[in-house]
């Protein structure tokens, strides 16, 4: 479908970078771990992986990533956040976290399902995906407490939103990179990245 395989950056400050890289490559796209803000210019899409949101947020602020990511996002860069990445994409958290990208109109609750002993895996059904259900790993996971009118809830668990999309931003509370199910990565590459960008749509968001 893609005439030229896109390059997906994976923010590589800490966390499940390798797993996302493998998933992206298995989808036929190129993966580029990103450790420096200048490298953002090389990618058509960005994944903010699972990890420790407090740590990744601090390191993003410390190493000067917040503004460059916001700028690229305003130009149309598609961004996919998983677990910690969801928190970092949120406009705010219930706990009032400091270092967030604030790109999505959602309010996240951190460790919403509890500590590690409460972490779990479960089948969830995702709108737009055919059965079977998606086996989702929730590890010290957040949920989406509130979402603005422009946010589409694509999946829930026990009445809580756990997968949402807002234009070219996609966020989930669980870890698709820890299973072999590539549907969500494919959805990001084939649907989210090709979606409309504000008023001036550009293919793949290259500047």
């Amino acid at each position, binding site marked *: 479908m893609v005439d030229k395989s896109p390059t997906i950056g994976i923010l590589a400050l*800490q966390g499940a970078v390798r797993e996302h890289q493998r998933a992206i490559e298995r989808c036929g796209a190129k993966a580029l771990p990103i*450790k420096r803000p200048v490298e953002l210019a090389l990618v058509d899409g960005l994944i903010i992986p699972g990890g*420790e949101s*407090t740590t990744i947020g601090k390191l993003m602020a410390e190493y000067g990533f917040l503004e460059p990511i916001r700028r690229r996002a305003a130009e149309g860069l598609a961004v996919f956040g998983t677990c910690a990445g969801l928190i970092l994409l949120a406009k705010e958290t219930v706990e009032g976290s400091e270092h967030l990208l604030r790109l999505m109109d959602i309010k996240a609750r951190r*460790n919403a399902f509890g500590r590690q002993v409460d972490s779990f895996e479960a089948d969830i059904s995702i709108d737009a995906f055919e059965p079977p259900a998606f086996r989702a790993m929730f590890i010290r996971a957040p949920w989406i407490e509130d979402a603005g009118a422009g946010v589409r809830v694509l999946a829930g668990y026990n009445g809580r939103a756990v997968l949402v999309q807002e234009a070219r931003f996609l966020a989930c509370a669980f870890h698709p990179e820890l299973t072999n199910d590539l549907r969500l990565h494919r959805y990001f590459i084939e649907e989210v990245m090709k979606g409309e960008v504000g008023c001036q749509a550009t293919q793949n968001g290259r500047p």
Partner: protein
Amino acid sequence: MTEKGTFRVKSGLAEMLKGGVIMDVTNAEQAKIAEDAGAVAVMALERVPADIRAAGGVARMADPSIIEKIIDCVTIPVMAKARIGHFVEAQILEALGVDYIDESEVLTPADESHHINKWRFTVPFVCGAINLGEALRRIGEGAAMVRTKGEAGTGNVVEAVRHMRTINGEIARLKGLPEEELASAAKELRAPYDLVLEVAKTGVLPVVNFSAGGIATPADAALMMQLGADGVFVGSGIFKSEDPASRAKAIVLATTHFNDSKVLAEASKGLGDAMPGLEISDIPAEDLIQNRGW
């Protein structure tokens, strides 16, 4: 449908810690310093290994009230140590809600033949290893994360390097063996056959492997990362140094940018004195912590 404490959920948390630094802390103030410096998790214990080594006597699980205070003051995961084989200490730590238990040779072992049956717990475990056989035995018992032991409390990275190189070398050797020789390799390694088979096929450990025991500088941390560690534990190295906050931050920076020598040079500047180090050959063999565990 919904399952807690599956192996994927346990090992998954370790995957989320990759590329990070886990720091030993003995109170809430230190935990806050560690979190502010960018630690991915803290290890709650009563005394850092250098002090345990100096004090002698029996080292046990930390007082639950210390662990609770640490849990309350940080948002990152909190780990805590139980003695080898002391499954009741582990039960207590699980009840306190710690996120990971380190069944650790740094504490005085409670059982000289058996480790904890870690499959019985919902909380995940990390265990130390000095070679591949020990790592696979611990995984066979249910450990969802491994750390090379090094020699805790010495500020001397030489044992950490030895253990990481040993494991890497043993994995490389397994990869090169024909399948019919893997059963006797498993026997030599004293490791479960199915895990030996898996490692020979994939060329990597089935769980995340951090480096521990002797890391005292940003360069030490980057050295272990370049040797293939998924992340590092820093025990005495931070809070036994002259300027813990700056050193903690510098070690985090060096762990993220372990392949960037310019960043490493910057990170290594002006940190004050590192912890005083110990020469391994000056430690009597019976006092070596790495030999605990079976």
